């Protein structure tokens, strides 16, 4: 059994995901908009499904991707505006409900369209094991471009992440920056969800960043730890999936969770010693 040929591409995919989602995760944690990203991920999946059902685009094509992305852009606008303008209901409620509605919408479309419950599992845990070279290549390029944008705009992004109210008070055009942030997130998430599914993307986003928070407060070190956690989780998860003949995506997510649990216990010990 040639492990490299089975797990080579999936591992590379995970590394890519870990790099970009890890960084995003740090922001997401700071801004405390954790569920926005699962909502955006779900809406990206919804967009792709809608494209497939109503416009007839095949599930894997560029058109489906475009549909997914347009939906996430709409979501980005919606969340940026809602965070600023909607005062009569907490933003978390809006996000949670939006997530549930878009998941409901996705299931509605799956119910109306072809296929069946594999679509549900694919939507959630992706088809990580079957990722192919060319797809990985241009996804990687897209990630690199977005990564460059994040590098370019890191100062304003970090400023808003570190304190929303202060940024507003200082007169920053927060809606604009927020929209840009969520739009870039949206592009990354749409591509990532295609590879690995909603749940896996969510875990890559939150868990490494959380682990890094246990060990440091500085951006630089946290990024390093985040990437390390992501890569370890990916490797362990893929091997686990191979050994137990399970879904690759779900195992990677599980591995990330286990790394988190281990770190938490470790930190606990460290404090009590």
């Amino acid at each position, binding site marked *: 059994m040639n492990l490299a040929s089975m797990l080579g591409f999936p591992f590379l995919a995970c590394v890519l995901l870990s790099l970009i989602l890890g960084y995003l995760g740090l922001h997401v*944690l*700071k801004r*405390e908009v*954790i*569920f926005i990203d*699962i909502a955006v991920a779900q809406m990206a999946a919804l967009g792709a499904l809608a494209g497939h059902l109503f416009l007839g685009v095949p599930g894997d094509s560029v058109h489906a991707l475009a549909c997914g992305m347009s939906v996430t852009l709409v979501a980005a606008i919606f969340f940026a505006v809602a965070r600023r*303008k*909607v*005062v*009569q*209901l*907490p933003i*978390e*409620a*809006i996000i*949670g*409900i939006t997530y*549930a*509605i878009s*998941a*409901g*919408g996705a*299931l*509605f479309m799956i*119910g*109306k369209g072809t296929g*069946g*419950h*594999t679509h*549900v*599992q694919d939507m*959630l*845990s992706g088809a990580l094991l079957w990722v192919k070279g060319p797809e990985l290549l241009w996804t990687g390029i897209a990630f690199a471009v977005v990564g460059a944008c994040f590098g370019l705009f890191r100062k304003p992004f970090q400023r808003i992440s570190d304190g929303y109210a202060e940024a507003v008070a200082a007169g920053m055009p927060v809606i604009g920056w927020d929209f840009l942030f969520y739009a870039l997130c949206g592009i990354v998430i749409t591509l990532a969800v295609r590879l690995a599914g909603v*749940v896996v993307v*969510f*875990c890559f986003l*939150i*868990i490494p960043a*959380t682990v890094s*928070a*246990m060990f440091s*407060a500085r951006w630089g070190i946290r990024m390093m730890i985040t990437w390390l956690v992501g890569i370890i989780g990916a490797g362990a998860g893929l091997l686990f999936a191979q050994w137990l003949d*399970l*879904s690759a*995506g*779900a*195992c990677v*997510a*599980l591995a990330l*969770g286990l790394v*988190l649990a281990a770190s938490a216990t470790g930190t606990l010990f460290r404090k009590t010693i």
Partner: protein
Amino acid sequence: MNVTVNFFVMQITLIAVVLVLHTYLGLHIIRRGIIFSDLVLDQLAAFGVMVGIGWGIRYGTPLSYVLALGATLIGCALLAVLRPRNRLIPQEAVIGILYGMAMVASLLLADKMREGGASLNATLVGSMLWVSWPLVWVTIGIYAALGLLHALCRGPMLRLTEDPSAWPRRAAWDFLFFVTQGIITILIVPVAGVLLAYGFLMIPAAIGTMFSRRWVPALLIGWGTGFVACVLGVITSYRMDSPYGPTLMLAMGAFFVLALVVSTWLACRRSTVPAGLAAGSVGAETGGLR
């Protein structure tokens, strides 16, 4: 009775009853800001049911409910215990991770089970189509009991939400609150599925909150709009020949979006105070500010 009429009456009765307690608890949850915790409990209940199916325990039997309860209680315990003191890790992150892990557990179980994919789908989408009158009666019974309990204890219950400070015996009442939430979760998730259960809890209450700060009006508005939305959803699903659970969800979603737009517009119009000062207040009475 005509089969179709019977079906409609049964579904609408169940929804009407379910929405009462769900809207009420939802109002508490929104005001306390513990919104995503219910998703975790819903998903764990679904996981419990799936484990049951995997072990050959038919869904709908008492043992199946016990398993769901067990899984849910683990979730309650984790939610209560895991409160990171680290400033960089928000409580929301913990809840999110718990939800993620609950989903992962369900996915891995589905992978190994014979009808795994179908079970997973069923727990997400629900099987309200197969609700029977006995189930409706049991649900009404339990909800009535819980409702009575909450009516009798409404003093401390309301205080839980309105007074966030640590008052004596708060923990006991808190526990009662979560147990109520747990019970309605395990009752409704096997039938309505995770998403719809979450929708029943959040959406009518959210709509109510958007229009009134006071408990009774919010409850009435929430229940009313929720009920109308669901009835429309049932009719639409029948007419359009579309999946039942997701259609109800979308119907409620449509009403939610509408309510969001309308209430925001109303709030903007009503607010004669600069946006900066009004931000953060929930529909504050502008009486004293003008």
